[in-house]
């Protein structure tokens, strides 16, 4: 059932968040991670009643603040100034993470260094000896959101796959990722099985060989 989009190249950088946005159902409560996941907000249907959660303590987060709207007391999880929508609410950190960890968020979208076929996520630490580790809310989101979607390039700069049989980077969460959105394909993960939902500028067969993974269609 894979749709192979062969009349085009890979998704451009801004097309990936747009593709994610299409999969978010109306009425969902969603947390968008720092970096490219934040851009998903730009592609959500404003009429779909999707509510954004930011783990520093807010539901109903709006778009990025314009220069004359900047309020240092109103930021997102990336510490960038944002705005408030009608129906927003503020709460403290324990309540914010209780909401997340209690399974009340429908979807979170995160970046990743690696995702395994079994849905393991590695996105918080490269493990390099001189790297200063920082985890923030990543492990809480991985453990708490009902669905964890990942945005990443499918291959690292050196060409090695980032969707892998088993992660080599330190893990953020076990078996939590259900969808992976990349430049070359969108994948659905289920019980260790990887299905290519759509490919862009390549075929399932070609990807399967390059990833050294069995891809269900």
């Amino acid at each position, binding site marked *: 059932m894979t749709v192979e989009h062969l009349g085009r190249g890979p998704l451009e950088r801004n097309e990936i968040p747009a593709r994610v946005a299409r999969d978010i159902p109306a009425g969902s409560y969603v947390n968008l991670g720092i970096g490219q996941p934040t851009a998903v907000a730009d592609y959500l249907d404003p009429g779909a009643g999707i509510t954004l959660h*930011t*783990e*520093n*303590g*807010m539901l109903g987060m709006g778009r990025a603040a314009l220069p004359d709207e900047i*309020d*240092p*007391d*109103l*930021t997102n999880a990336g*510490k960038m100034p944002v705005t*408030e929508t009608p129906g927003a609410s*503020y*709460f*403290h*950190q*324990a309540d*914010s*993470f*209780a909401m*997340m*960890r209690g399974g009340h968020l429908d979807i979170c979208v995160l970046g990743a260094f690696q995702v395994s076929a079994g849905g393991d996520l590695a996105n918080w*630490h490269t493990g390099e000896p*001189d790297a*200063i*580790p*920082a*985890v*923030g*809310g*990543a*492990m*809480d989101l*991985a*453990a*708490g959101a009902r669905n964890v979607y990942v945005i990443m390039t499918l291959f690292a700069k050196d060409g090695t796959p980032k969707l892998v049989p088993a992660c080599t980077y*330190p*893990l*953020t*969460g*076990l078996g939590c990722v259900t969808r992976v959105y990349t430049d070359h394909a969108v994948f659905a993960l289920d019980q260790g099985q990887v299905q290519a939902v759509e490919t862009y500028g390549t075929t399932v067969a070609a990807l399967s060989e390059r990833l050294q993974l069995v891809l269900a269609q």
Partner: protein
Amino acid sequence: MIAVDADAAVAGISDGATVLIGGFGAAGQPVELIDALRRSGAGDLTVVSNNAGNGDEGLAALLAAGQVRKIICSYPRQADSWVFDGLYRAGKIELELVPQGNLAERMRAAGAGIGAFFCPTGVGTVLAEGKETRSIDGRDYVLEYPIRGDAALIKAFRADTAGNLVYRKTARNFGPVMATAASVTIAEVTEVVPAGAIDPECVVTPGIFVDRVVAVPEPAAGVAS
């Protein structure tokens, strides 16, 4: 609940104390209280805060002064965390990395009299290594313990004379949780209003959790920027 100046407010914090410091980046960071703590000269501190300082002010300045032995936080590394980065790479500060939700929940547990709790975050990761785990109803959990402070330094928007606090937007973040988890809680606010002037339905931190209040008349936003 006594309104005092910042230096008097932090005077009792001694060498070796564990200090909970509010804020998520600059939002909610009690810069005036941190500066007073720096001036007090208290050293060998353990600081619990979400981040490890930004730029050269506030928490970063406290670190730069060499007063902090160890920091417990979720996200030390940022674009402007050069003070921490330098100390860490030089082996001059100890780091305990705690997932943000665990940081909040462990302080809540301290404030709520919970001895320990089984938590879903971090299962199977290096941050859970050596910790007790248990499967409950088919799901794996890690046992986490409370984090208590000798003092909490927090920033709120407004206090009343009963010590009740309200906050502003996402600057609320860790303040209400830290206020419950420390032996002495000190709040920096923009103004102190009479008891009764804050709607009892909208109080976020009841006065029972607040020991000292310091009014810093600048707008909250101006202090942090």
